[in-house]
């Protein structure tokens, strides 16, 4: 809904993402806040922010595939592994700079994603989920068992820090300024992809694939494109992960991570770019809660053992998703839209 008194007089205004001066002010102040955030954050929260940034990229990709095209994938973190190892090998063995390695990782993950997207032409729904589940197990296995000489196998692959004109990004603080701008850029890409003809084709496939085909949407092409884009994003996220962690292991990219990503899309709101970000932040917040809560409980009631930390994380995550799917299936994004229309109409809301 448009704020009161705002009318489009030109076509460019009609398709603009940012419509009013207030929008611009909010956007710029938001970006400024992101830019100064690491100056205020403690070292622990710096790590959390970086992780959130990387996760947002992966989840935006999955949101393109699952939220917009309606194809379920539980193999996103395996695609991240492909990207991470591509970067690791390129950077370590060939000394390729990060601004080449990151897009190349995206491409390699995208190509692997195409292979596992092929079953989507014959099966859908649960069966497709199963095919991507297979990917989730086969890819880490290949990393650990095939060509161990270049991947390092079960031993972690150590990645050199990214370097820009002799300046080494070797701390959490410096990595923040690589991760967050990339996350913002990728989010901007997704926002524009879903507004374009490609995005409309994706949505058409999600809503009714038969009707989409009759309308002239090439299912073969667009489903594979969706898989490619999804995996491309995962590859970029994986590349950043490799530079961020600087030691990568197939064990970092498990089924649980993939399910986390799906959970983030569901809780954030399917088919919403903002929703994906909300979902990531919400579930990461639950993670933090699971870390802090046992300490608090331990302080208040010393009788309860502090070892509950490991148990709380899956419990909170499960409950956090359960509550959202049952009570607000349209996710946080829906609440956010309701809130926006409320304040725009205020004082005439209700």
């Amino acid at each position, binding site marked *: 809904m448009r704020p009161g008194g705002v009318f489009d007089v030109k076509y460019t205004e009609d398709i603009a993402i940012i419509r009013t001066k207030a929008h611009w002010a909010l956007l710029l102040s938001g970006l400024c806040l992101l830019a100064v955030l690491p100056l205020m954050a403690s070292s622990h929260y710096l790590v959390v922010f970086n992780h959130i940034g990387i996760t947002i990229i992966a989840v935006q990709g999955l949101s393109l595939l699952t939220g917009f095209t309606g194809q*379920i994938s539980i193999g996103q973190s395996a695609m991240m592994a492909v990207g991470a190892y591509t970067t690791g090998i390129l950077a370590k063995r060939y000394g390729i700079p990060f601004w080449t390695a990151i897009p190349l990782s995206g491409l390699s993950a995208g190509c692997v994603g195409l292979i596992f997207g092929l079953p989507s032409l014959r*099966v859908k729904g649960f069966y497709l989920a*199963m095919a991507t589940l297979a990917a989730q197990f086969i890819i880490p296995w290949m990393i650990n068992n095939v060509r161990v000489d270049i991947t390092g196998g079960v031993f972690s692959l150590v990645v050199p820090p990214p370097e820009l004109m002799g300046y080494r990004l070797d701390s959490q603080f410096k990595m923040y300024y690589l991760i967050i701008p990339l996350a913002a850029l990728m989010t901007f890409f997704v926002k524009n992809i879903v507004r374009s003809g490609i995005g409309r084709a994706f949505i058409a496939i999600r809503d009714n694939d038969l009707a989409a085909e009759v309308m002239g949407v090439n299912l073969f092409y667009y489903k594979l494109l969706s898989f490619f884009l999804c995996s491309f994003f995962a590859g970029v996220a994986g590349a950043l992960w490799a530079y961020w962690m600087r030691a990568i292991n197939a064990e970092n990219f498990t089924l649980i991570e993939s399910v986390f990503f799906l959970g983030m899309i*569901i809780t954030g709101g399917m088919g919403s770019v903002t929703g994906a970000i909300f979902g990531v932040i919400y579930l990461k917040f639950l993670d933090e809660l699971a870390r802090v809560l046992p300490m608090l409980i331990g302080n208040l009631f010393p009788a309860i053992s502090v070892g509950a930390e490991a148990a709380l994380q*899956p419990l909170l995550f499960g409950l956090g998703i359960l509550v959202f799917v049952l009570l607000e*299936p349209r996710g946080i994004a829906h609440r956010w839209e309701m809130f926006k229309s409320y304040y725009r109409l205020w004082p005439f809301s209700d």
Partner: protein
Amino acid sequence: MPDFQLFCQFFINGLMIGGIYALIAAGIVVIFKATKIINFAVGDMLMIGGFITFQLIKIGMPPLLAIIVASVGGALIGMAIERIAIRPLIGQPILSAIIITFAVSFIIKGTTLLFWGAHTKNLPEFLPGRVFRLAGVVWSHELLWTFSVTMLLFLVFALFYKFSKTGLDMRATAEDHQLAQTRGIRVKNIFSIAWAFAGVIAVITGVFLGLKLSLNLTLADAGLKAFAAVIFGGLDSLLGALIGGLVVGLLENLIGGVINPSLKEITPYLILLIVLVFRPEGLFGQKRIERI
């Protein structure tokens, strides 16, 4: 021929372990037939079933009684999951159903960690008999017990579905929910019963799997491998679950034993992928004409 004997050994072991997969697969199929929902929490249900049995034996119950009590508990857990998490989802898209069973799986994992901690537990040996050697092959009494109980349970299920009133109702519900409802079948009750069945099956598989391996969180991974069996045999066929489970167990052990031990881990998933590409409905599944 020692090689042939080795082959026989892997064959026998594979077949017996396949029995466990078949039983887990049966739990998935029973739920899918009735509710059209795929239960990703099946591995966690069997894990907590094993833990409950462990706890009951620990407080001094005789093993058989412990398994029976735990089965009742498993049935209650199954019904609770259905009532709280699954029933509100009727009419929602399939992704919601998938993610909610994952959420249930996380909750069960968390609960297990909360009560039993992350340390591995071992069920006491209570099965009569011992390992023996026959025709050059080592036969484990545990696996033999597992296999025979699996076969027995499948027989009971077949008879139940074929002859009992509830079994007929369940088959009718699997055929068509609305039609079943117009014939006076309480479809919601059938949902509950199906989940209760799955709970019972989960406890029994949990005990056997816990005896063979030991009780910890990784026990739940067996549930995912059983999906290969389910897809192989067809999602809505109990016979398919049996044969799929046996085939997956056999191939896993033969490939792991004869070709490459490290391949064992991903054999079920390779089978899964191949079946999905060439025959998505499985061997015995109902072929649906579905628009893609």
